[in-house]
């Protein structure tokens, strides 16, 4: 990667860089398309007739519901902590991120174990109000939307907060000059300015929801992903599964195209300047504003945390051995390596788009980030097929020159990291792209006048301005990799069992309380460093 080439204004370099980054995901998509050929017609007919109609409706309801609710929660919470001063604000500011580290499937199980008919809450209530008491079931459409929104709102919150925090005072000053009240300023100035961030966050939430399998499985809520899994796992037709996956990717691509077009109509130029001062709240207003983040944290973090902690304690004595610590170490190592790799690719891609913002480059960038909407298992298959092909090619080449090929390309960490890169490029791309949009051409021109060119321009001017986006991107990828299950399971080499693998092994045997220990560790090991990092990032300098 050579970002200076991307920053320069010649046409071919950026296109090549974008093409190089997009080559990985495109290879995966092609492999999936090839693998999809030859699905038995009878299986496809069965799926179309009996499975797809129901799951399509379910999927639309779930994706729209979760994206709107998570978007609303994330945006409102970000706006509150960046615009107002109220009790515990500085704690909320970073604590509201912590639920990001709780995998949605874990939150789902805690919710069902706690709130279903047989759970402690309803059992206690029946003890008070009589056996006839019936409450709205948690295992319902509303329940799954609520749980997924609580697990995914941090993606929007993180991006939106970065936007509000860096909008600067001048935009608000202009709004005040025009006689806008703070609320009007939010709706007419701040929100439109933060739109790329919020939209980016909501797009991530939508894609994550589409690709989710674990959470909907716990709720037994059938979605498109379920149908893919069904074709594969119950009809034993990987081809039919890949055809469905292809349809899913196509839908996502179309949706993203519309989003892109809507966004392209707007220009986003930061006025800059120091951050706007926060308005101090007191009395009932302060109490009311404190209540929202407090409630969200209680539901998404504190109560599940207590449940997980209690379960973990039951099993800690037996399960906490040396193996366990090395699993935690591998989780962190994979998270760090993936974050570094994915951020590097995302920066290259974002610069390429910036230097050559035409349809081709943008299209390549879109293709490159589609992997986030693919169910992990499907993506793993798409990575496996070309790697196996490449392996055979090397083997043949080695044989041709009489050399010996160890024949284990599949079993290296590189394959796992490549799969992560395809899956999580979107996660790093969203904040970096939004951030880079803030760095205007006039900043470049000004820097050039002062003698900063090429790499120096990147290092001395862009990087300090990109800090928020870069740290956000790295943190998101790190935590996502810590939680990731299907790709890790399928492509990990021997000995690379992580915390998420532990969670899988226990939960798939129904041992949810034993899974609490590794689940809690994912939260602790993954998130505290991230929260600290982001706190530092908030400080100037």
């Amino acid at each position: 990667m050579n970002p200076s080439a991307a920053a320069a204004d010649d046409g071919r370099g950026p296109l090549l860089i974008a093409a190089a980054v997009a080559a990985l995901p495109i290879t995966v998509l092609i492999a999936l398309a090839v693998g999809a050929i030859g699905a038995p017609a009878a299986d496809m007919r069965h799926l179309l007739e009996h499975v797809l109609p129901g799951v399509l409706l379910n999927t639309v309801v779930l994706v729209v519901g979760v994206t709107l609710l998570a978007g609303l929660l994330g945006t409102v919470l970000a706006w509150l902590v960046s615009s107002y001063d109220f009790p515990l604000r500085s704690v909320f500011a970073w604590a509201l991120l912590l639920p990001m580290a709780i995998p949605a499937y874990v939150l789902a199980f805690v919710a069902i174990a706690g709130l279903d008919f047989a759970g402690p809450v309803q059992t206690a209530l029946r003890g008070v109000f009589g056996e006839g008491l019936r409450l709205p079931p948690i295992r319902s459409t509303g329940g799954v939307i609520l749980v997924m929104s609580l697990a995914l709102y941090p993606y929007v919150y993180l991006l939106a907060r970065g936007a509000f925090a860096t909008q600067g005072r001048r935009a608000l000053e202009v709004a005040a000059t025009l006689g806008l009240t703070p609320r009007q300023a939010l709706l007419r100035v701040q929100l439109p300015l933060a739109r790329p961030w919020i939209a980016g966050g909501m797009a991530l939430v939508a894609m994550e929801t589409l690709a989710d399998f674990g959470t909907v499985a716990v709720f037994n809520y059938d979605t498109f992903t379920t149908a893919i899994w069904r074709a594969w796992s119950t009809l034993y037709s990987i081809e039919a599964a890949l055809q469905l996956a292809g349809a899913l990717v196509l839908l996502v691509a179309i949706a993203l195209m519309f989003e892109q077009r809507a966004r392209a109509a707007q220009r986003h130029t930061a006025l800059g300047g120091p951050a706007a001062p926060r308005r101090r709240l007191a009395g009932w207003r302060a109490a009311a504003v404190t209540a929202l983040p407090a409630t969200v944290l209680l539901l998404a973090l504190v109560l599940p945390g207590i449940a997980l902690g209690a379960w973990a304690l039951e099993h800690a004595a037996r399960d906490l051995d040396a193996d366990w610590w090395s699993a935690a170490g591998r989780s962190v190592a994979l998270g760090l390596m993936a974050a570094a790799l994915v951020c590097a690719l995302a920066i290259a891609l974002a610069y390429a788009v910036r230097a050559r913002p035409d349809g081709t480059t943008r299209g390549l960038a879109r293709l490159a980030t589609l992997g986030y909407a693919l169910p992990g298992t499907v993506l793993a298959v798409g990575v496996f097929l070309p790697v196996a092909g490449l392996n055979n090619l090397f083997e043949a080449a080695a044989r041709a020159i009489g050399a010996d090929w160890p024949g284990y390309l599949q079993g290296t960490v590189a394959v796992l990291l490549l799969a992560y890169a395809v899956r999580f490029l979107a996660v790093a791309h969203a904040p970096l792209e939004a951030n880079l949009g803030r760095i205007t051409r006039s900043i470049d021109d000004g820097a050039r006048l002062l003698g900063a060119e090429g790499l120096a321009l990147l290092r001395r001017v862009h990087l300090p301005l990109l800090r928020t986006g870069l740290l956000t991107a790295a943190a998101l990828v790190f935590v996502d990799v810590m939680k990731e299950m299907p790709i890790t399971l399928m492509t990990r080499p021997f000995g690379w069992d992580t915390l998420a693998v532990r969670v899988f092994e226990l939960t798939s045997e129904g041992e949810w309380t034993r899974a609490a220990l590794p689940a809690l560790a994912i939260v602790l090991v993954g998130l505290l460093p991230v929260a600290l990092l982001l706190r530092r990032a908030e400080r100037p300098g």
Partner: protein
Amino acid sequence: MSARRALTVLATVATAALLVGCSRPDTPAAAAAATPPAVAAGEVVVYTARKYQLVEDLFAEYSKATGTQVRAVTDDAGPLIQRLRTEGADTPADLLITVDAGDLWYAADQGLLAPLESRSLMASIPANLRDPSNRWYGLAVRARTIAYSTTAYTPEAFAAAVKGYADLAAPAWKGKLCLRSSKHVYNRSLVAALIARYGEPKTEEIVRGWIANLATEPFSSDTLLLQAIVAGQCSVGIVNHYYLGRMIAEKGAVPIAIRWPDQDGAGVHVNISGAGLTAHAKHRDAAVKLLEWLATPAVQARFAAANQEYPANPEAQPTDIVRDFGAPLQDPIAVAEVGKLQPTAAKLMDRIGWR
């Protein structure tokens, strides 16, 4: 942290990651980071859908006793079989362990398992619990049975009302039945067994009756289902016997009893957790030895006990909890037949709308 330093750190880690990741497994850098995938003699590599916590103690003991290192990769059967398919002749796997006969049948059907004529295995494992072509052998038996609330019914009353699976379709059970999701292989396998027993139309009628009797949406796990029976949300359900066994092992007395279905007829539906030798095994002899060891009576008892199952080897004893469940008449149909019918069963369940 300055952004520059952050980027330097990122770049360094990225480079290191790529170096580690791309280097051949036999280089020192990779060896330090990961256990090298290249396997030496005296090792067996196992792809297992039976979860590691259920087999790790036995594998560790075997390694210690024989010096043969057993290395396992866990995942669900689907991805493991796909992995075997993709790796082809290069696969490092010697054994495939699944928790369902259907998955073994499918792996064998895809040519991923090799026939294994082992006299000792054939003597240990009954014919209906293994592949007719000897490509896989059952190692533990689980029964999918009817369980009911002893708070709601006396054993006599329940036994008089319910003789088998089909009785749960009667309108008398409306609003009283709990089922697990149709997505789980255990239910698919049960419906496949019913198709083999009664034919498709009759099975569809029975299963429609079940769905009409549901007290609540299907559960995502048998454990949650049993808890719902305890709480009184429903009074009867269909579960694998060992989930109740585990619950009893953990909590002591539980107000749930087992009613073995169809004891005057075809018997309770049983499935297996079993293993097969892969077609491209690199350590064939060592793998066969491990498999034969797993089928010996003493090991069989422990293999089954880890999960409160019935040993596949009739000479081995189950745990006390399982012995107290009784020794039911088991559906004698070959589990291989049931595996073959699974796609048909899946389609039937989709048509009916069993979620």
